[in-house]
């Protein structure tokens, strides 16, 4: 067991280092601005007094490295400073929105993961049949469509024409869980369509790869019933690629959520990021980017760790 813990710790350490480098990139990119943030916020017509006051308020009179360390320390303790535009605390504005986004992503994942794995395995078993071809074209179309296309099609047919679901996923205080699921169904369905297609294709590829291995051939030749070949011989080795597929697609979900949130006016962190970018509210942009990057890295890390845990061969790197 010791070597597994060591390997996992090593992966975690690597993830932390990458996150640190990304925090440096995110922070110092803003420093690339000519002049500084204060100049960018107030525009060309700002008086020197105003500039000086804002600089003092934002701590811009200190050297960049000191400010970076302060920012990093705040970020670790979930304090990202104050918004330039509204002056409110960034963590407070983003906190609930981040929870909303996580809820939407989890909702979509809860539907998409079982469906796509079952479908992916079925399609892999029936490969090169007409159903496989149809599934191939359908998933390719779904992947190739921009998220807003799928979203608006769903709005048009499920909300405007038939009125089955609300077109705008607005949240209120004190909604019960069923109502919440109902109101956020369309954005979740949009994400499900995209992610299911990705996951199905990857699961299919992984399973086909597996079914081509000699020991499956051997099991078939010795007369094992087909279901037993799948359950006893193929499945134990299929967990590693499937876990990988799921984790990678959850990471994809986290970024795909930005466009979907804008389409459905869902109060999530993606919408906050887009608003902040168009208003050039840098503290919010930095905080959102760091959160997105951290989630992304965490899920990729989960994929690695899951692969290590389920595939003993990875524990002994050559």
């Amino acid at each position, binding site marked *: 067991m010791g070597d597994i813990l060591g390997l996992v710790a090593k992966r975690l350490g690597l993830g932390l280092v990458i996150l640190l480098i990304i925090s440096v990139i995110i922070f110092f990119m803003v420093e690339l601005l000519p002049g500084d943030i204060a100049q960018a916020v107030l525009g060309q017509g700002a008086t020197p007094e105003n500039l000086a006051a804002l600089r003092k308020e934002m701590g811009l009179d200190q050297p960049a490295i000191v400010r970076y360390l302060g920012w990093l320390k705040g970020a670790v303790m979930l304090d990202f400073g104050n918004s330039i535009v509204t002056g409110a605390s960034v963590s407070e504005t983003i906190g609930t929105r981040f929870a909303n986004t996580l809820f939407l992503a989890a909702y979509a994942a809860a539907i998409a993961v079982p469906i796509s794995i079952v479908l992916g395995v079925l399609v892999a078993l029936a490969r090169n049949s007409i159903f496989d071809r149809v599934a191939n074209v359908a998933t390719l179309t779904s992947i190739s469509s921009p998220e807003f296309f799928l979203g608006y099609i769903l709005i048009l047919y499920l909300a405007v024409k038939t009125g089955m679901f609300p077109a705008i996923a607005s949240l209120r205080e004190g909604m019960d869980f069923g109502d919440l699921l109902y109101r956020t169904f369309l954005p979740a369905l949009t994400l499900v369509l995209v992610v299911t297609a990705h996951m199905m294709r990857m699961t299919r590829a992984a399973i086909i790869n597996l079914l081509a291995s000699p020991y499956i051939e051997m099991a078939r030749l010795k007369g094992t019933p087909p279901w037993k070949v799948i359950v006893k011989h193929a499945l134990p080795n299929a967990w590693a690629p499937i876990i990988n597929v799921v984790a990678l697609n959850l990471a994809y979900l986290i970024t795909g959520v930005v466009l979907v949130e804008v389409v459905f006016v869902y109060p999530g962190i993606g919408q906050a990021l887009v608003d902040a970018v168009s208003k050039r509210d840098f503290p919010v942009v930095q905080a959102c980017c760091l959160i997105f*990057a951290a989630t992304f890295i965490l899920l*990729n890390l989960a994929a690695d760790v899951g692969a290590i845990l389920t595939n003993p061969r990875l524990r002994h790197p050559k």
Partner: protein
Amino acid sequence: MSVFVIIYYTLLLGASCLAAYFNKRSAFLLLFSLTLVSFVLGIVGGVGALRAVAIAAGLLALAAMVSYAFREFLIAIASHNMAKELRTAPLTAAFGMFVIFTYAIAGIFAPWIAPFGEAQVISSAFAPADENMLLGADQLGRDMFSRIIYGARNTVALALAGTVLAFTLGAMAGLLAATTGGYFDQFLGRMSDVIMSIPSLIFALLMLSIFGGELANDTTSFWLLTGFAVLVGLLFVTAVAEGNVMSWIIGLAIMVGVAVAFAGGMLVIFNPSEIILVLVVAVIYSPRVFRLTRAVAGNVVVMDYIEAAKLRGERRWYLIRREILPNSAAPLVAEFGLEFCFVFLLIAGLSFLGLGIQPPTADWGSMVRENATLISFGELTPLIPAAAIALLTVAVNFVVDWMLYRSSGLKV
């Protein structure tokens, strides 16, 4: 029971019986399962649902016929070797090529095809379609159809420029890393790891928040372009010059000239905010190209014929140009297609968010956003630009699928 329903089921059942009689197993399975599904659909959705199925089947048949004819056309005009390759293309790939061809025509001849100008206001806002305007007017009263045609030019050209830049940087770095090895290789590898661990849309938003606004002017974009070109040029010169001081000096001089000319040329074609967009995309996607090129070239570099060429005394540039590139061309071309899809979707997404291509330039992503209000009135028009994006991406993917299948062991 209307006449339509009777004809519908007669045709389906007749076709499935014929398929079964002539032992066409897959066709029979498809037709008969469609019949079974139609029973359920007909009960749940009524005649309307069946009509929709019939229309979809008709469209599919039309697409199949067009792709078949287009493939035969290509085979007829292509040279003998090309024709042999083209004969192996499945109908989906032929359909992809047809769509790409159509978009190219629409993009190149946009000013002649479009009945009105790109930003020409000709009627009231959201005017419905009439014999003058094929698809009605948009939110400012501009002709929707003309704007879609112009969009084929603006959106695709921008995505193509971004892909080419990303590819030049990524592929050059990958080839150089594969042939040089050592610390240089390690350094580039780690750097691409870091860039790839930030989600692309998020990274693009971060960069656009900084380079958007006042920074999107002629001077800044000129210097950024020159910087990018110098970076690519440095890789080129390193590959060609190889330690010879004289060639370094000549190479650097040529490089600066080319970089400035390139930046000036780009500024003539695109406006500053578009150039920033292209550069952002190039920076984000070049690590992916680098990874693939490095992997493919890495497999070629260890071959015996490379060893032989090295013993012959060939230089690095010769190795890259004459030995490695021809042997890794197929996966690289396929990767170019895939990258184009990613870049295209990213740019469309950014424009949809209002942060990409800026008005009044006609662009599909922003057109969807601007006309989105029409959707709540049950109108299909705002979806047409989005469908145009999806169609092109699907088409490129179909062609790439075929090329991957043909060229390599990637038979997924």
